């Protein structure tokens, strides 16, 4: 009982209520400050802190790590504050148990204290992922000054043999990125491994997350997304085992001298739990921060209030106010907080607030300025701001946040909203001229530069419009404004409307979709010119007006990138329709049909047997000969697809791509080998063509046929590419279609050898792949560009066929691996598996 006497020795007025605070952190001390401000003499105060130091500003640990601040600069309350307010501070001694009946508590040292009122402000514990090696020396979290010291020591030590030290940060959220930034400023080579596909996914949308990743990579960090940690690796060192690196579930390994785990926090509610206070995720409190025991209050990150747990300081201040009001007998109440986030990495401006999940009930207002690296998105619902994500320019973050919190009606400033507060205010002063969206453009001076790429002033654009250019395209070709990067398209369109009146502007080619003013051709050209290699990058550089596109542009962009950068671009599965994602055709009952490739329509007993076995084994209700000369197995469940494919693969069969915007079938007839009229080996050539072209992704589906003579039994003249064999060689036909609108082919040319036929086939396909619009089959494409154009493109330059064919073959190197084989081997198994199965109530209760 010595200890207790020691505490009470410091008390001079025994009549005062004894207030004990557990947790010498941001919330605990703020609560005390608020109470002292209301009634300095009411309580006799003792604070227990687990950390061996006075109260400091935890959020500034990041600048301390980065070397921008010292610990002394971030202390909030130094020793004199405690003594000056007669507060007993016990540091480095965590409270380990509470006896609610006796109103006493015990600290680790054995110290016992009595309380009349208790405040729990124990904060959060960093979450440690449950993998082998997570307790190795050198694995640290990022929560307090000791963690920072451990990171600084590791940076100081560097790597083995005087090399640069290596750090792996697990977690690409706010804390992880601040740790990574600090460590890299301290000279370490940093790798961030993050589970989700985009950084800070809880605060940022895909577009902003992508920009952030690009910038961090530019600064030399390695960012690995979609990375699931399997194990922390160790090695034997001079002082025993030490961390050596991180291994991911996909097998990749990253070496490390220190591993920082920053994957999230959990309310530190252990003490409250053992004390049998009501706890869910956090300690449950009412609006006055009172727990299920009226003598005990709780505040800060350890609490759960109206279902919410917070991980930022702003809510704590409001909680502390309510707590203090209650403690001094003037209850006010706390109603919960809306929060906003800023990343504290110098030179990178990131802000987010509210709900940015988007959707059908809300409107997204997006502004992108690629040259300045800016992305701004404000989410509006029923004329109120409900969320904002800002990258690159966060000056207006607090303004949006204010509008959001106050729920202000923004209908008057809607047009100006995305340009920020200054602009909206100026407009309001100007008598709401912005009700006219052309206001901003009208206000520009004549010399103002509209198109930065080509140095075109407003006066020149207007002159050009006055001179007869009444459409965007006409302006582009006349004075070059908006003809390069296109970021000024919006301005030019406004100038057109302003100069001619809204109704007189001639609409040019249709834009790719409602997310952009660029046409398919523009997008394809700019992807190459500006070397755009990822969907979010295209959207940023080409000023998409939506955050992540739509069901029209995503699949189109995915194809365009795949075509432009073979081998470099990695396919975005989320941008593909179900058939292409599951490599099978969905049927009306939700099952799938499976069509294995039968080269040129030829089959053999082994294949037929394998198909028959699959039909029986998986109880397929139907097998049918398709119009494309192969067999279609119907009624396969998505769970069984990988097993079906494995069986078919085992018999040497691969995917027939019956589901894809890709090469479908090569139909053949029997040809010279059997037919009495056959002039050439049409079956053999068909098989060769199919072997050359299978697996290639196209703007739309693509069908080929080879007929052995002009009787044309393979219907080559209604195919995308058709060969009709004749005595003297091969007639090559293009642009046929037997579908909704029948179109017979145009004759492209005649060649003498199979080799030439193959080369022309490859070249024609590549021209189509490189130039057609997504979802445009060869027939409408040729109708649009004309067969003469196709002939010119292939034949004017004698090297063109060879060059196109070479590009096709290069791309095929990366396309010709059977997607079924990978799935059968277990890749993306989750697409085919249920998460779990729920058994009925009765069974569950029986357990």
């Amino acid at each position, binding site marked *: 009982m010595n200890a207790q006497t020691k505490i009470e020795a410091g008390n001079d007025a025994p009549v005062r209520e004894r207030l004990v605070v557990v947790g010498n952190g941001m919330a605990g001390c703020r609560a005390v400050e608020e109470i002292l401000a209301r009634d300095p003499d009411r309580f006799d105060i003792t604070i227990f802190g687990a950390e061996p130091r006075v109260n400091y500003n935890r959020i500034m640990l990041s600048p301390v790590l980065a070397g921008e601040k010292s610990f002394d600069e971030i202390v909030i309350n130094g020793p004199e504050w405690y003594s000056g307010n007669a507060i007993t501070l016990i540091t480095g001694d965590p409270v380990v148990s509470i006896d609610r009946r006796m109103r006493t508590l015990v600290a680790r040292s054995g110290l016992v204290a009595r309380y009349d009122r208790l405040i729990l402000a124990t904060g959060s514990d960093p979450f440690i992922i449950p993998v082998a090696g997570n307790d190795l020396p050198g694995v640290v979290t990022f929560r307090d000054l000791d963690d920072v010291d451990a990171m600084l020591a590791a940076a100081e030590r560097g790597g083995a043999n005087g090399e640069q030290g290596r750090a792996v940060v697990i977690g690409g959220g706010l804390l992880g990125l601040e740790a990574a930034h600090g460590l890299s400023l301290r000279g370490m080579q940093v790798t961030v491994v993050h589970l989700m596909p985009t950084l800070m996914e809880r605060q940022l949308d895909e577009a902003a997350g992508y920009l952030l990743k690009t910038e961090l990579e530019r600064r030399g960090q390695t960012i690995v997304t979609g990375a699931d940690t399997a194990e922390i690796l160790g090695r034997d060192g001079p002082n025993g085992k030490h961390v050596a690196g991180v291994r991911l579930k996909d097998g990749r390994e990253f070496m490390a001298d220190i591993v920082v785990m920053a994957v999230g926090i959990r309310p530190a509610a252990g003490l409250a739990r053992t004390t049998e206070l009501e706890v869910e995720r956090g300690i449950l409190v009412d609006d006055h921060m009172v727990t299920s025991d009226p003598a005990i209050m709780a505040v800060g990150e350890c609490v759960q209030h109206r279902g919410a747990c917070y991980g930022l300081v702003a809510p704590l201040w409001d909680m502390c106010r309510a707590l203090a009001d209650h403690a001094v007998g003037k209850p006010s109440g706390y109603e919960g907080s809306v929060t906003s986030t800023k990343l504290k990495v110098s030179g990178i401006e990131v802000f987010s607030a509210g709900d940015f999940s988007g959707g*059908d009930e809300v409107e997204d207002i997006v502004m992108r300025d690629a040259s300045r690296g800016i992305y701004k998105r404000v989410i509006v619902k029923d004329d109120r701001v409900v969320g904002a994500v800002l990258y690159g320019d966060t000056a207006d973050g607090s303004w949006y946040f204010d509008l959001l919190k106050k729920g202000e009606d923004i209908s008057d400033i809607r047009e100006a909203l995305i340009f920020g507060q200054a602009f909206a205010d100026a407009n309001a002063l100007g008598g709401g001229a912005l009700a006219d969206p052309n206001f901003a453009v009208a206000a520009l001076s004549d010399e103002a530069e509209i198109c930065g790429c080509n140095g075109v002033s407003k006066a020149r654009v207007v002159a050009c419009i006055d001179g007869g250019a009444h459409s965007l395209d006409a302006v582009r070709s006349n004075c070059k404004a908006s003809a390069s990067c296109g970021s000024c398209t919006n301005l030019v369109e406004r100038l057109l409307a302003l100069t001619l009146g809204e109704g007189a502007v001639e609409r040019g080619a249709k834009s790719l979709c409602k997310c952009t003013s660029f046409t398919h051709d523009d997008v394809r050209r700019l992807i190459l010119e500006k070397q755009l290699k990822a969907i979010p990058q295209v959207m940023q550089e080409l000023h998409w007006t939506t955050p992540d*596109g739509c069901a029209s542009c995503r699949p189109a962009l995915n194809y365009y990138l795949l075509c432009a950068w073979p081998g470099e671009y990695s396919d975005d599965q989320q941008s593909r329709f179900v058939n292409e994602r599951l490599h099978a055709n969905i049927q009306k009952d939700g099952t799938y049909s499976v069509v294995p490739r039968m080269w040129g329509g030829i089959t053999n007993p082994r294949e037929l047997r394998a198909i028959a076995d699959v039909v029986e084994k998986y109880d397929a209700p139907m097998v049918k000969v398709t119009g494309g000369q192969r067999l279609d197995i119907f009624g396969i469940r998505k769970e069984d697809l990988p097993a079906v494919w494995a069986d078919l693969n085992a018999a040497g069969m691969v995917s027939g791509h019956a589901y894809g915007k890709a090469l479908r079938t090569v139909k053949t007839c029997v040809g010279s080998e059997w037919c009495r009229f056959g002039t050439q080996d049409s079956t053999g050539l068909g098989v060769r063509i199919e072997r050359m072209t299978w697996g290639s992704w196209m703007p739309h589906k693509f069908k080929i046929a080879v007929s052995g003579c002009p009787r044309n039994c393979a219907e080559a003249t209604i195919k995308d590419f058709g060969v009709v064999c004749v005595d003297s060689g091969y007639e090559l036909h293009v642009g046929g279609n037997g579908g909704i609108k029948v179109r017979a082919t145009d004759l492209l040319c005649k060649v003498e050898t199979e080799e030439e036929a193959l080369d022309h086939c490859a070249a024609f396909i590549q021209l189509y792949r490189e130039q057609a619009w997504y979802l445009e089959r060869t027939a409408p494409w040729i109708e649009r560009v004309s067969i003469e154009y196709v002939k010119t493109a292939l034949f004017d330059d004698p090297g063109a066929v060879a060059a196109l064919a070479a590009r096709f073959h290069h791309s095929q190197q990366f396309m010709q691996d059977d997607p079924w084989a990978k799935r059968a081997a277990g890749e993306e198994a*989750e697409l085919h598996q249920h998460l779990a199965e729920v058994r009925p*109530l009765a069974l569950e209760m029986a357990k």
Partner: protein
Amino acid sequence: MIGEWLDIGPVSQISPGNARTLPVQGGEEIAIFHTLAGAFYALVNKCPHKAGPLSQGIVHGNVVTCPLHSWNISLKTGEALGDDSGCVPTIPLRVDAGRIYLLREAVVGQQAA
């Protein structure tokens, strides 16, 4: 809490932009969606049009486009959007400490209804 909410496992089981399914013996199969913006939703896996498996659709914003005839269904409300009308039941879902929870009574209560 354990009683009211069914633990469906870690969020990492569903990559953003995807959905996965949860058959319920004697009840309707449930589809759990993870949007590109990181939100999670659960719906009965049956399009109000002709019962297409919504879990196989393209997810954009808070909407899934049905794989069969491209109706757009709100993940928040289960309602068909635009000119189409119809509604599929939603199942209350919560994410806590990286795990997905579904409201038990909405999942197993189905066959009672």
